[in-house]
């Protein structure tokens, strides 16, 4: 293998420059215009056998196209003495004189730049590129020769958390967060750049970063998250003190503080709260569409709101909120899908809650329907098991089943009002397709046992595929998937199974998170 620029390519560059490579790359490898793509579609065939075969190469001297498998490009090179060819799939250069592909920094820079333009033009973001260590990273790797390899039975990433006095509400959520693949990738690749320069001690994101280091250090003794607790007390005052707290409330408060701290105190991105691009928003933010339909003129007014989690009602519905002529009165939901169906059905708002219709110019009775406009990478569901009415707190402990893989297709805004004929068929097909874009896979479940007034939180986390663990403060015990699915589930999280997305879910006795 030749890793230095070969002499033949050097001669070619010296006499003809880089332009031939650039032109071929722009037109036949990374197309940056519709015209180029048309040309590519039409002319990328072997000039000898007239077929679009794999490993098509273009001669760098005369733009002859030939396939490699049937040796047409080789024959061309030999007969014409044109020794250099470009692979039309990857843009690498093959030198027939050297007998192998050759690599050249200048050429690679051009290819990289072209690739970027093409991706922008196509609207592809976050495309995959292999990791190339920088000089500094090479140095660090040489200084630290110890390597760790993950095996199926490795326990790395698993660590108990000491209970600091009724802090199981925090521990269970921390376990779910530290096993969120996208957060783990972000923090372990050291991508956080602290924005709170003056007092980075106060930055919760920095603390999360340290926490990930602790979890994935390979240490097996329980970790004491006192710094995290202190920061939470400082930034979310309502959670301060040694009383029992709600895990879901902690999750939301934590995401909120993390989101704030990502932006830092410079306020640059503060001007547009809905277009934040921080890691928390990238992973957790979804869009909920709310359609209010006027019963008089059927005018629909639509709003879209961001969400971090979805709180789902349990227990039977009250009659007054039902459709006047509604046939689908909802029984007490017994599965997550039921809960979601209930969440996304049209709801009659009642005669006492008239809404001003912009078409009728008057207050009219209306229906409201919520659907998913945009799904987050991590979907977090919270089952409202605690009922707080005046004078009493009650816990609804109905068993709610949830799947290991969740398909959100039926709850999308695009599925709304299309419950007929063809569209329904499309939806069914989409649902049966093995990995639709709306599929999530369960990765964490938070459970609560006890009553509405006092109890204990535990969680289940998926360490890697099919390896589940039950975390109860300092204890971490291997669990079976059946145990996870049998648990009551408060918060479940799932990860999306799309572009680098594996949706997973976590549930606790009251909440579920699907990442």
């Amino acid at each position, binding site marked *: 293998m030749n890793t230095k620029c070969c002499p033949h390519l050097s001669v070619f560059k010296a006499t003809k420059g880089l332009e031939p490579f650039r032109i071929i790359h722009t037109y036949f490898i990374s197309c940056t215009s*519709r015209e180029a793509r048309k040309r590519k579609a*039409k002319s990328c065939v072997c000039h000898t056998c007239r077929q679009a075969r794999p490993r098509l190469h273009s001669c760098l001297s005369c733009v002859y196209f030939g396939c490699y498998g049937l040796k047409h490009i080789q024959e061309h090179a030999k007969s014409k003495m044109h020794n250099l060819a470009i692979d039309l799939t990857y843009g690498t250069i093959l030198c027939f004189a050297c007998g192998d*592909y050759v690599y050249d920094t200048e050429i690679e820079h051009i290819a990289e730049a072209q690739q970027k333009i093409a991706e922008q033009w*196509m609207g*592809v973001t976050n495309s995959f590129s292999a990791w190339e260590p920088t000089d500094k990273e090479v140095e660090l790797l040489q200084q630290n020769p110890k390597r760790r390899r993950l095996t199926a039975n490795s326990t790395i990433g698993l660590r108990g958390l000491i209970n600091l006095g009724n802090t199981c509400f925090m521990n269970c959520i921390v376990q779910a967060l530290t096993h969120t693949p996208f957060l783990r990738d972000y923090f372990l690749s050291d991508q956080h750049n602290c924005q709170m320069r003056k007092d980075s001690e106060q930055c919760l994101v920095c603390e999360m970063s340290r926490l990930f280091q602790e979890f994935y250090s390979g240490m097996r003794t329980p970790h004491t998250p006192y710094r995290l607790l202190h920061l939470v007390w400082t930034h979310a005052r309502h959670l301060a003190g040694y009383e029992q707290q709600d895990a879901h409330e902690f999750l939301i408060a934590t995401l909120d503080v993390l989101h704030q701290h990502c932006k830092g105190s410079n306020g640059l991105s503060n001007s547009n709260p809905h277009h934040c691009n921080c890691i928390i928003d990238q992973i957790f933010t979804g869009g909920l569409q709310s359609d209010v339909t006027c019963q008089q003129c059927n005018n629909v007014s639509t709003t879209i709101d961001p969400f971090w989690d979805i709180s789902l009602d349990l227990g039977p519905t009250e009659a007054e909120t039902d459709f006047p002529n509604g046939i689908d009165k909802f029984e007490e939901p017994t599965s997550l899908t039921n809960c979601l169906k209930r969440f996304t059905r049209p709801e009659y708002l009642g005669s006492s809650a008239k809404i001003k219709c912009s078409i009728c110019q008057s207050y009219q009775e209306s229906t409201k329907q919520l659907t998913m406009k945009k799904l987050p990478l991590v979907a977090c569901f919270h089952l409202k098991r605690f009922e707080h009415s005046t004078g009493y707190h009650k816990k609804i402990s109905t068993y709610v089943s949830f799947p290991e893989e969740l398909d959100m297709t039926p709850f999308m805004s695009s599925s709304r009002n299309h419950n007929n004929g063809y569209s329904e068929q499309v939806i069914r097909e989409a649902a049966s397709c093995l990995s639709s874009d709306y599929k999530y896979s369960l990765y964490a479940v938070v459970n609560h046992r006890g009553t509405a007034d006092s109890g204990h939180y535990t969680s289940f986390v998926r360490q890697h595929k099919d390896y589940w663990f039950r975390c109860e403060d300092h204890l971490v015990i291997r669990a079976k998937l059946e145990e996870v699915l049998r648990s009551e589930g408060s918060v479940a999280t799932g990860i999306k199974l799309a*572009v680098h997305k594996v949706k997973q879910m976590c549930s606790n006795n009251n909440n579920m998170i699907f990442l």
Partner: protein
Amino acid sequence: MFFYSIQERKNRDAQMRATINQKLVVSGERDKLKELLRTRLIECGWRDQLKQHCKEIVKQKGLEHVTVDDLVAEITPKGRALVPDQVKKELLQKIRKFLSEQQQS
């Protein structure tokens, strides 16, 4: 008795493949599918497995003596065999969907 020319059948299939390929390229769908495939293969560990295999071959033959052709010859059958059925099915489904959309518009 009726017979059809197998050669003609083959030609037509090849023609159909070329047309589909052109449509995929012109619309940009091909690049999108490629990116999706890449993602799926990374997710399921296919890339790591093959990389490991390549490393072994390089070690065995010595960096100076191994060529891309050597690697391609050894890796291709293994690479093909290791693609999970699920991934193949998903890609096929996507191509079908694309074609039916093309037909409608």
